[in-house]
């Protein structure tokens, strides 16, 4: 009797308390790990399809090698992380861990549905954005801590790119927040039940999407770790689980930005499927997840299409194109507010 009570209490705590469920299951850690395995597999598979080859195949051959990434993950886990003598040890070890953590934390704050959110705040959008800006610090720190010229150059590139995309990111998000007059993600989504944000302010949507691509080093902006120039950029000296964390962090950030895009511009959990709520209160949030997944698939598909830009060209895109676009999106929002009221 008592054991069953404890179990039911535990289940209640884990699965029906949003404060616990959101960070751990959806949209938090478990979803992220599953998604990491799936999306990297999909990335390789799509690239392989375009390039007329098979891609990952031999691990679980019947399922098209979908467990390949799980095998890779296990390998990273048990591989010895080599720490070179010349590195700054604290920065070298703490960097990847903190980078992954800062990439993950905003995901934990995203709402699953209107009633089921980890963070209830008037300012949840601002909070997610503020946390997103922290990650580049560690990217630069690890490049410096690696004490390798290639790492250092990669970090410098990362720093310059960060400076060029951060302001457009804020401005485009604030533009859509202005239209809805709210900084609360849940409220913004609720107001999109009739008209999606992408229709209200397409400029902001385009800017945000481009920023998402640049900030997570998707092609054609995979510049900080350009392989043929600077080996692996900031990650050159890394191996084992530390490298796994670094690789994962960029995908996690991409996931957060895609979720944010789905929530802000694609109507979030609308059209809501109410019968899903009978399964679990967070289940209607799957709609958001599917929308975010579509964005991510688009992002990873670009790898098969584009070469990479040079760093100065990317910065020019950031300042000339994105900055102007984000200013335009603010003006557009003001016009929409003035017209619609």
């Amino acid at each position, binding site marked *: 009797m008592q054991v069953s009570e404890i179990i039911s209490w535990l289940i209640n705590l884990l699965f029906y308390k949003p404060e616990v469920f959101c960070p751990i299951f959806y949209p938090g850690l478990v979803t992220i790990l599953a998604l990491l395995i799936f999306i990297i597999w999909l990335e390789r598979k799509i690239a392989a399809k375009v390039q007329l080859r098979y891609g990952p195949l031999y691990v679980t051959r019947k399922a098209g090698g979908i467990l390949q990434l799980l095998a890779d993950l296990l390998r990273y886990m048990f591989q010895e992380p080599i720490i070179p003598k010349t590195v*700054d040890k604290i*920065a070298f070890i703490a960097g990847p861990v903190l980078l992954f953590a800062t990439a993950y934390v905003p995901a934990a704050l995203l709402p699953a549905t209107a009633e089921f959110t980890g963070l209830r*705040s*008037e*300012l949840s959008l*601002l*909070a997610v*954005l*503020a*946390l997103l*800006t*922290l990650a*580049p*610090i560690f990217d*630069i*720190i690890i490049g*410096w801590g690696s004490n390798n010229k290639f790492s*250092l150059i990669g*970090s*410098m590139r990362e*720093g*310059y790119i*960060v*400076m*060029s995309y*951060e*302001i457009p990111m*804020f401005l485009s998000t604030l533009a859509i927040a202005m239209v809805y007059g709210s*900084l609360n993600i849940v409220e913004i989504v609720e107001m999109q039940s009739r008209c999606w944000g992408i229709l209200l302010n397409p400029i902001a949507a385009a800017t945000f999407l481009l920023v998402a691509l640049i900030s997570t080093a998707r092609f054609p902006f995979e510049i900080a770790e350009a392989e043929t120039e600077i080996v692996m950029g900031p990650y050159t000296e890394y191996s084992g689980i530390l490298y796994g964390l670094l690789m994962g962090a960029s995908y996690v950030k991409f996931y957060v930005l895609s979720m944010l895009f789905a929530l802000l511009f694609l109507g979030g959990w609308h059209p809501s499927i109410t019968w899903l709520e009978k399964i679990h209160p967070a289940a209607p949030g799957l709609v958001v997840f599917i929308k975010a997944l579509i964005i991510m698939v688009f992002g990873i598909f670009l790898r098969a299409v584009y070469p990479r830009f040079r760093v*100065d060209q990317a*910065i020019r895109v950031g*300042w000339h194109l994105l900055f102007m676009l984000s200013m335009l999106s603010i003006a557009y929002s003001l016009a929409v507010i003035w017209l619609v009221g």
Partner: protein
Amino acid sequence: MFQANIVEGLIFTLAAALTIASAALVVSAKSLVYSAFFLALVGAGNAVFMAMLGFPVISLFQLSVYVGAAVTFILFSITMFRKPVRIEPTAGILALDAAVLATAGLLYAFQSVTGTPVSVGFKEISSLLIGKYRFALIIASLALVTTLIEAITLAMRGEMK
């Protein structure tokens, strides 16, 4: 109520320890990169205080703008990271004296302050910003944008040389 107080006290103590330790490390760290990194931590700790004081908007603003600016610091510390930082001993002792005196003086001055924080929403602040402080807002945002652009162009020009 009592419990909430304890939690608040705990958070405050942790944040205070973090902030002061980071501040000490900013001035004492051998490498500029670490200094800049700890400045980011000072900013983050400060953001916690702000949230606790009832200014969540400012806290998040501080986190995104100010801690984000720390990136710039780190970046440029790296470019100039060739020579070790020298501290002159005599000046150091003088500085220590001055710092202790200043701290004591400030503490003495603050003693008389009483009052408890209240929560401030972003609507109030934004209405103030858009209303009464409109001009200051425009000036500040212009300054922010122009200096950032200027910093970038300067840096780029330096690279192109």
